[in-house]
């Protein structure tokens, strides 16, 4: 436990220090969402209708942006070698790394979403629904991204490849995230139905992502 707490504290500290890149994702999110009203024009009804989808797409792309920092840096400087020789279960290690990554890159997206909702003419209910679905959905995106990061860990400059590998896997999260947000705004479905499925997908990603990442890292040694 002590070892995992130390790893968690280190990863958080690395992310928030200079060059850690914790703010890169949220700034990118801000820019993407800000650009949308300029591209679509000042049609408030249209903005409100596509708002949840724009916020979700922005968050999805922003969360991909920081994935290459998740494991590749530890591989490049040799930290991963030592992590593999530690008396700690690798599955727990990668889960803690992903959790620290989500807290520093995923949670800021969730917190930024209500403010960005203002730019897209979302009413408070819609904003709340989007923020809630992002709160459940971004951990799923992080753990899916973790698998991509592990598979490409030995490749130099594997960042873009991670995005190509991971994006297709995020489709269910995106569908049910946006569906739940829209259900809260226009219906006819109850918010709970797609939201429960989203929660289920997130839990599956948590478990499968952790196991698959550990397996990929063990294999990467070969």
């Amino acid at each position, binding site marked *: 436990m002590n070892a995992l707490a*130390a790893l968690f504290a280190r990863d958080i500290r690395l992310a928030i220090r200079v060059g850690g890149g914790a703010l890169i994702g949220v700034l990118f999110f801000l820019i993407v969402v800000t650009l949308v009203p300029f591209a679509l024009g000042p049609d408030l009804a249209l903005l409100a209708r596509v708002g949840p989808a724009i916020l979700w797409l922005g968050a999805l792309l922003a969360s991909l942006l920081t994935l290459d920092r998740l494991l590749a840096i530890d591989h490049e400087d040799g930290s991963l070698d030592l992590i593999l*020789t530690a008396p700690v279960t690798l599955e727990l290690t990668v889960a803690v790394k992903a959790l620290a990554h989500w807290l520093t890159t995923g949670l800021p997206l969730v917190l930024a979403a209500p403010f960005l909702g203002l730019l897209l003419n979302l009413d408070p209910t819609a904003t709340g629904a989007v923020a809630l679905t992002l709160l459940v959905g971004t951990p799923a995106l992080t753990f899916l991204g973790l698998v991509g990061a592990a598979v490409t860990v030995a490749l130099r400059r594997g960042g873009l490849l991670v995005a190509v590998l991971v994006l297709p896997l995020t489709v269910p999260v995106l569908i049910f995230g946006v569906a739940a947000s829209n259900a809260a705004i226009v219906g006819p479905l109850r918010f709970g139905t797609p939201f429960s499925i989203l929660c289920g997908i997130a839990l599956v990603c948590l478990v499968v992502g952790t196991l698959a990442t550990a397996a990929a890292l063990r294999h990467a040694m070969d």
Partner: protein
Amino acid sequence: MRLSGSDLACFRGGRQVLSGVSFVIEAGEALLVLGPNGVGKSTLLRLVAGLAPRSGGTLALDGGDAELSIAEQTHYLGHLDALKPSLTVDENLTFWSRFLGGGEGTQAALAAVGLAGIAQLPAAYLSAGQRRRLSIARLIIIKRPLWLLDEPTTALDAAAQAQLAGLMREHLAGGGLILAAAHGPIGLAAAKELRLGGAQ
């Protein structure tokens, strides 16, 4: 304690990197792996640490902690220093000590490698030799019986090399084992030698 490898082989990237390597290291002994570049010295060390796949042969550490794998009883000091530039010297060492199950008291370990005065300096400002010394401090603060040292004297000045030799002698006197890859003497007079290459 006794580390024995027999007929070890490693197949990587479609190429036989190692084959038929055998050695025995008893407690208190050091084994120096010698050979030209690219012959598989580093691969042998990574194989023992469990970081490279073993495609043949057997590897055993007798007399160790039966509940731990060989890797978990091993210090691997490779070419990479595993340091984070934005963390201070002390933070880097403290993290590895906690994560790898070592003790507290980074000051003593830093003093032993001559870095006590710059414990609060970010690791980004360290020279290559200082980075190496910080890696070596890890060997002191975390007690593990088997040291795998890949060209440990790289970038070290004469004084630091002597310091390292002292640490290695102390480790051996305490019943530790050392497997080192090198191109020349690393300051251990009594080390056995394993020569790779030639036949392969």
